[in-house]
């Protein structure tokens, strides 16, 4: 770790001011992704601005048809929330399956979304649920938010405050874990809303994406059989020591079926 100046701020305005200084500064949420990078000296910042003291960034509430989750809400809180379980149970299940208890107790929704890890779980939920990312400057649709490998639409100094999720009629998430890290080797989030069906895939490319063929098939027939004959082409999919592109393509198809099965389960 290189030296940096640590600042814990109490409000968005303070955070903005801290970021605005001439030197390079970085926001800190749960630190689960940022701290390893700092420890290994893979990045160097003059200032670290800790969002942990901003109470308004934490919490979960309903806003008409939306479920709103504050950026600093931890995965463990989302996983345990009765409101989330009642509104979008698939989202609670997703949060419960992130990493391990330590990671879930520290890691946050905002940090995960801003980090845009290609194998992170939340991006699949955001894209499939047509979520809107609220910053101090604007509202960004998930569709245009995730741009590539660790790349988002956030501008310098932009702070995620909350994410708005549209309540779906049906939603399900299925994840095949990379055995070491427990990130998604592939994860598929399937939703049906008044606007249609969405199938979002994480872990398989440099960024989360919608599997349009599956969406079309499910729009016609929202049952596992509709997916049975589909195959995602493996070209362009991630290949690494954990899985080839071919195996990932196969798993996307299987995980889509399992996500759909979860979506079709009667609410418990």
């Amino acid at each position, binding site marked *: 770790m290189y030296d940096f100046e640590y600042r814990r701020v109490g409000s968005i305005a303070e955070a903005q001011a801290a970021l605005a200084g001439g030197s390079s500064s970085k926001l800190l949420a749960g630190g689960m992704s940022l701290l390893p990078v700092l420890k290994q000296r893979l990045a160097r910042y003059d200032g670290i601005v800790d969002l942990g003291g901003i109470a308004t960034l934490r919490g979960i509430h309903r806003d008409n048809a939306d479920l709103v989750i504050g950026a600093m809400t931890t995965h463990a809180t989302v996983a345990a929330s009765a409101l989330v379980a009642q509104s979008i149970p698939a989202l609670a299940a997703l949060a419960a399956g992130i990493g391990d208890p330590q990671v879930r107790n520290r890691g946050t929704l905002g940090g995960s979304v801003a980090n845009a890890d290609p194998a992170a779980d939340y991006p699949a939920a955001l894209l499939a649920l047509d979520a809107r990312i609220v910053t101090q400057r604007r509202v960004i649709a998930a569709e245009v938010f995730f741009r590539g490998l660790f790349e988002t639409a956030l501008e310098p100094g932009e702070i995620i405050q909350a994410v708005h999720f549209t309540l779906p009629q049906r939603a399900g998430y299925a994840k*095949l874990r990379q055995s*070491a*890290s427990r990130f998604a080797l592939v994860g598929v989030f399937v939703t049906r809303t008044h606007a249609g069906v969405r199938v979002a895939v994480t872990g398989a490319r440099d960024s989360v994406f919608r599997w349009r063929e599956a969406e079309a098939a499910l729009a016609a027939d929202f049952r596992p059989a509709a997916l049975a004959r589909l195959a995602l082409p493996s070209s362009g999919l991630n290949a690494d020591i954990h899985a080839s592109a071919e195996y990932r393509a196969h798993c996307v198809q*299987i995980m889509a079926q399992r996500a759909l099965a979860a979506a079709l389960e009667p609410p418990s």
Partner: protein
Amino acid sequence: MDEIATDSRIGQPVRRKEDERLLTGKGCFSDDVNLPEQAYAVFVRSPHAHARIRSIDARAARAIAGVLAVLTGEELLADGLKPLPHVPFSMHPAEIRLANRDGTPLFSAPHYPLACDKVRFVGEALAVVVAASVAIAKDGAEQVAVDYEVLPAVVDTLAAAEPDAPRIWEHATSNVCLDADAGDRAATEAAFARAVHVVRFSTQVNRVTGVTMEPRAAVAQYDAARQRYTLYAGSGGAVRLKDDLATVLDIPAAQVRAVMRDIGGNFGTRGMIYPEFCVVAWAARRVGRPVKWTCERQEAFLADYQARDLAVQAELALDAQGNFLALRSSNVGNAGAHPTNFSPLQKGVEIMSSIYRMPCAFVRARAVLSNTSPTRPYRSAGRPEVMYVLERLIDLAARECDFDRIALRERNLLRQAELPYTNPFGMVYDSGDYHGAMAKALELGDWAGFPARREQARRRGKYRGIGVANYVDTASGVPRERAEISVHPQGRVSVVVGTVSNGQGHETSFAQLVNEWLGVALERVDIIAGDTDIVKVGGGTHSGRGMRLISIVVLNASRQIIDKGKRIAARLLESDPSRVRFDAGRFEVAEGGRAVTLFEVAAAAERLGDLPEDLRGPLTAFSDETVKEASFPYGAHVCEVEIDPELGAVEIVRYAAVDDAGRAVNPMIIHGQTHGGIVQGVGQALYENCYYDPRSGQLLAGSFMDYTMPRADHFPPFDTHISEVPSTTHPLGMRPAGEGGTTPALAVVINAIVDALAELGVRHVEMPATPERIWRAMRAAAGTASGNSSTPMPQAQ
């Protein structure tokens, strides 16, 4: 386990004394040692798998405030440091020797603590920065500019053995640094020629690393006035570490003191001196301050010694009834960048025929150098690999030649009456009930009930398979061990031994011996092992030698204490030594019932000036023994798996183990050892893999994000059973119990997986058997069977 210890004697499942200390953060591991004024070392490590070091420019690093020294191979050679003293083979008298088939001497190459001419694997240390803090030392390390001439690299075992492979050591004629024959070639050829059945099996046993929970650390101090070094670092044993460090520093061993307290895992990969330990000691003298180094986890993945990595091509010959006729094999072990240790290869070859009746065998054993971290023995060195090969061959023989897997094993498994048995490599198995162990494992694993469970699994859409594997271990290691027992009048007994605990619970199980023989309560016994100012002799923890040898020397020393005690007690009780009996810590004269305690006797020995000379003074005794017999623990495991036909994901659903300990000193500790051993074996079979990129030689599985460790939720509860058929070559009947969990685990897991998929025509799945590998095996089999490539579903019946 619901057994509760009723006392602390041999055979009782006594709770481990050390656990409260270790579990409440009160242990003292190497990194817990801090010395006044200590400086910190950070190593400059090679980013290349293979490169010539053209030059190193450390000026910028030296200019940083707080940097005390930057030392490179050049300074190291100038200061006269010597290469690490590797002992390439186990020299135990009971074991076979491997020598080059063409009679040439064994290849050797100097392994200096810092790379001097070339770097030979990613992560090899070539310089050290010593600074006032770790952060400053890291700043310095970043500023050390190394001019590398990058060379082609080779990491794969068989590729490295090719004559035109990039040469790791220029003075070698090829990377094959050992090429030995073992067994009887002519007899084996003849047996194959008349065989009715021959089964063949080729495999590459994956490379894994020890992943000790406590990463390595070292703190060294140099006392200039006394010209003496003290090194605090965890290892297998203090005496060996002291001697080896003295060799590297080229000084008399008396000028070195090695100290180690708690050690968070060894498994063999940590059993030897490491380059960093030498550098830290040398640096302490150079900078005139204590120097500390703590290995980071990613550094551990790169620079810890690694293990296994064996390419095997084996054949088994059988007659029409299924009697084994001969075994023939080519075993190529990947030694890594330095020829440090070939004993896994040696130990694998010499018991490759396991505990089966094998009239003859022949193995060509080669070791090959490559651009990877050097390999060393790792929990059950060499044996899990060959047990896996042989047990796979047996399952393949059963499948391909239409024998029942169990009947085939029973037919060939040695019977008790055939022991002692000399195997085709010349190893003599002393004793044991091999058939009993397998029968018990099949019973615990409910082999008979398996078909019904398979049917149930089928209804749930899963493939279910079961496997069995027998095994034998060779426990040998350094044959000499010493114990010195002192009875202190204040009410304590100290036992100085040369074998430190790496987590095995010695403080408890060794103390149980003292409780058994001297009647002293466990809390009053101090086991002292990790300081060479106190411990003079001892081989360290490896090769199942801890309890096996310690029990012998502690028994001998205890007997001497009792004999001396009787003579002193006779004085105190005004009786004759022959009439004094010792029982439960008391010396008593039978007729009058008068008695004195062991501690009263110790006090008298120190107080009474007129005792004969050999009784006067502290009540102590020592025993120093060289034990020439090896030991052959054995057992059988049964494993059951379920496979998800869509993803290829495998789940272990049942696991039963029978391991023979001869005589169990603390069954609870043994069960714990078996559990951990099974997990390490399964880790290799299903998850772990030191994956080096074949082109760049980069270690791609270099952190816990990429190197998969087995976890608690991967396993069902284990059903482990300790068999106690006394060993005929150990005075107390004991067999080591620390490695049995691992030895058959690779075999039994893969056998179970292949059994699950056998109906599809799957013949084998390589380790680690990842979901993708299993999925591919299923697809390939389906492709051959029916010409289409969709994943088949198990058929519900």
